[in-house]
């Protein structure tokens, strides 16, 4: 298939009228009908129900529509991205980052975007996922890098990048360092660090530990992001449950947690169909292209 064919179908899906769709595409109606028919042959099914008074998408047409919209969007974004190579205009990238993921994870990708895309101007906003989504809806953010479940929410496009494994972060010399792989049962007498919301990553893991133990372990202190949590570990205020992909500071030790698994994944989210800058397109492509494990 090619782009003219896809754009013909997308216009038809919007107008549901062959005559008006052909007019909008500025081709004759027979040529327009042939173009849609050939796309149907190539895709292997009827996209459109052709009835005298009514043009409707078939079930197959409805199923294929988002994929064809996506490919059209991707091609337009790729053209804009290639143009940026010859442009003097700024390429903004407004990134939203979960407080439980951290800049080191996305650092290499940001560096690559800055190295290759001309005139990049990026900003990083760290906030809780619902607040980030709200800001993206308002147009303040282009991409969110977050911990999320695979549920689709309305206008957001989401791609799961990887399923993170979990670790316990301890200070050097801690008694539990003798244990190679730590399970929830080993945490009965530990002092752990909490967070502020039930859906914050350490709290999700704490809830799992509490289910295994039948009670919540001691969590007198709380942190609002991964770096603070690790600083509190360093200062001796407790142990931190977290992700194995966190950068462990030299003074701390990370031990894999055996039976704590996250159903959530590390995801990137964008608003479906919203035009974005070349820098944002490059960032998303780099994030999706690579392996995170």
């Amino acid at each position, binding site marked *: *298939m*090619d*782009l003219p*064919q*896809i754009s013909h179908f997308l216009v038809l899906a919007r107008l549901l009228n062959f005559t008006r769709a052909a007019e909008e595409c500025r081709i004759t109606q027979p040529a327009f009908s042939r173009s849609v028919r*050939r796309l149907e*042959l*190539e*895709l*292997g099914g009827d996209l459109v129900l052709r009835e005298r008074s009514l043009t409707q998408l078939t079930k197959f047409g409805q199923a*294929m529509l*988002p*994929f064809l919209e*996506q*490919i*059209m*969007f*991707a*091609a337009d*974004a*790729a*053209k804009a*991205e*290639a*143009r940026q*190579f010859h442009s003097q205009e700024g390429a903004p990238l407004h990134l939203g980052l979960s407080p439980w993921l951290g800049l080191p994870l996305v650092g*290499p*990708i940001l560096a*690559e*975007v800055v*190295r*290759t*895309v001309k005139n990049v101007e990026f900003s990083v906003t760290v906030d809780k996922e619902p607040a980030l989504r709200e800001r993206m809806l308002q147009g303040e953010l282009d991409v969110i890098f977050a911990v999320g479940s695979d549920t689709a929410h309305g206008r957001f496009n989401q*791609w799961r*990048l990887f399923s993170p494994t979990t670790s316990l972060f301890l200070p050097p010399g801690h008694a539990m360092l003798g244990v190679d792989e730590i399970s929830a049962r080993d945490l009965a007498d530990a002092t752990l660090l909490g967070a502020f919301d039930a859906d914050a990553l350490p709290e999700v893991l704490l809830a799992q530990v509490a289910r295994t133990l039948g009670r919540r372990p001691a969590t007198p202190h709380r942190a609002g992001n991964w770096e603070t949590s690790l600083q509190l570990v360093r200062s001796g205020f407790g142990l931190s449950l977290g992700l194995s992909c966190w950068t462990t500071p030299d003074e701390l030790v990370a031990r894999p947690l055996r039976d704590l698994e996250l159903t959530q994944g590390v995801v990137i989210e964008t608003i479906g169909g919203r035009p974005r800058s*070349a820098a944002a397109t*490059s960032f*998303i*492509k*780099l994030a*999706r*292209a*690579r*392996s*995170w*494990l």
Partner: protein
Amino acid sequence: MSLKETLDALRSAMTEEATAAYAEILERFDSQMLGRRALKIGDRMPEFVLPNAEGKLVSSAQLLSKHSLIINFYRGSWCPYCSVTLKALDSWVKTQSERIPLALVAISPETGGRASEFKAINELECEVLVDVDNAIAVQFGVVIRLPKRYQTLLLGRGIDPKTLHGGEGWLIPLASTFVVSTGGQIVHSELHVDHTRRTEMETIPPVIERLSSSV
């Protein structure tokens, strides 16, 4: 073994299920019709910026500033016919690159680090680029939807389009190869609806020879 012998051996070892899926592809796609969609000799290649297997962004402008390009769209890391064809092209290009400024570029829509695995497993030296959501392949006019039997075949082998491409559209490039001059013009194009029969090793060397002697 020559490329043809390797391809013949692979084809003759096809399972019954794979044979049926393969037959459906041949029946569904008409090379003439697909040929009309694709870029042709004399067309300008669309410019692109794509992540490579090493996680760097590579632009067509950079590539063309130094080399003529052989651009090969491969269906996916799951396609053995694509792998052996690419390996043959890669070895051949290596023997030529001292003589002719030439680079091979392999492109597929597979995400999640598969480009890097594919490159390592097949010991390729060429750039392996990730065409996320087929944004470039569709501009070359080579995107197809994998027919139902083939979808089932791949699903049965644990190959899931959601993790492979980040979407369930089953849209992939047709196995195809283009040669692009340093000026960005397409000087050769071949589409292989029958991905098991490949002519690249016969057609590409004379094209490159002509290209280098005309410079």
